[in-house]
């Protein structure tokens, strides 16, 4: 407090300089507040924009997938079921009544065989849309079933193990998880050249976890994020959009031993299925 002992001119200098300093400080503070807030708003808007773009990509991916699924269904019905039914119709034409009994029986038998094949085909199409095991027995059975089928092919060793799945998740959630697992397995089979796939399930706290291990070529989280933002990797985008619906997360990583890849799906556990 040197100015208390200072002379009058000193007091005047302190007064002017101090006031000037305070004004500069206050103006500086105001400018800082304004510019900082503008910067924060700009940053938030950029984030919002990025999020919107991401949503748009996911939406496009899901629409594209839906269209592809419809095309596949149309192709299955048109190319498989159509010709089968047309052939059956040929066997059962009006001339059949003019044929001898043995030929009639032969034609009816052939037509029946073709109709049976068509029924089987339609059943397969229907099962690919909604697996009956999933609907009737739940996620655990559906995944076990899927893994058994894969293992049964003999080309890859696939196994799954559910540690804690006494209370089923809601059916919509189960279907979404099943589709995600199907897509992941499909990717592994298509791209990784793995010799084994192993799936484990567990619950920790209020979270439901599924982890898939495989020893083939895989991707890590940064690759997944990169593919998710690019125009390729439709399946991965679909996984993201499906998991978003159930507020889930997915994490791709390489094991510490660097021998296999891990894909972990995490989602909130909901109330037990009734």
């Amino acid at each position, binding site marked *: 407090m040197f100015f208390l002992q200072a002379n009058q001119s000193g007091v005047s200098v302190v007064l002017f300089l101090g006031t000037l300093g305070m004004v500069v400080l206050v103006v500086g503070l*105001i400018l800082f507040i304004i510019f900082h807030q503008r910067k924060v708003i700009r940053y938030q808007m950029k984030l919002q924009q990025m999020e919107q773009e991401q949503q748009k990509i996911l939406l496009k991916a899901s629409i594209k997938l839906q269209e592809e699924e419809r095309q596949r269904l149309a192709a299955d019905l048109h190319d498989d079921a159509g010709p089968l039914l047309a052939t059956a119709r040929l066997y059962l034409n009006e001339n059949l009544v003019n044929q001898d009994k043995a030929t009639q029986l032969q034609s009816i038998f052939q037509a029946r065989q073709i109709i049976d094949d068509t029924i089987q085909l339609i059943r397969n199409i229907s099962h690919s849309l909604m697996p009956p095991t999933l609907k009737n027995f739940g996620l655990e059975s559906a995944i076990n079933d899927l893994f058994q089928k894969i293992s049964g092919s003999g080309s890859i060793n696939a196994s799954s193990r559910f540690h804690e799945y006494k209370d089923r998740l809601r059916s919509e959630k189960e279907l979404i998880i099943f589709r995600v697992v199907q897509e992941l397995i499909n990717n592994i089979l298509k791209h990784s050249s793995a010799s084994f796939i192993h799936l484990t399930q567990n619950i920790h706290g209020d979270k439901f976890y599924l982890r898939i291990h495989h020893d083939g070529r895989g991707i890590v989280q940064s690759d997944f994020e990169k593919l998710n933002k690019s125009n390729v990797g439709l399946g991965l985008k679909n996984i993201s959009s499906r998991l978003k619906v159930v507020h889930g997360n997915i994490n791709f990583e390489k094991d510490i031993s660097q021998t296999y890849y891990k894909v972990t799906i995490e989602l909130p556990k909901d109330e037990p299925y009734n």
Partner: protein
Amino acid sequence: MIISVFFICFQVFYYLVIPYKRLDTIPIGIESILIFVFIIYYFFEQFKNVKDELIYINHFFWVAIGIMIYLGTTFFFNILANHFDSQEVGYWFISYIGDILKNSLFVVGMIIYVTKRHNIISDDNKKVPYLDMV
């Protein structure tokens, strides 16, 4: 809140105990610092819930900076007031400048408040009227 209560107690104590001078420089100084702190805290709170709206669209911003500018310009004047000669009372103009700036910023705040209110009322008028058949 606690700081404000302490300050009021201090003011009462100062009023009762310390003999009267030209200006209560110490309480004014402490008060100024406290108001500065409160305003900075207010801005800090504003930053925590940033909306899309710019801060200077808010009338409180202009009131707050009006107070800050006034306190900034008069802070040293108030603190040193008791050390001036009688001739130096002419320095009151510093306080007047602060006062004019503060009032101008308050006016800006008021204009913004009135304009905003007017816009809200006109938005209400734009609502679709009742068009169903009676």
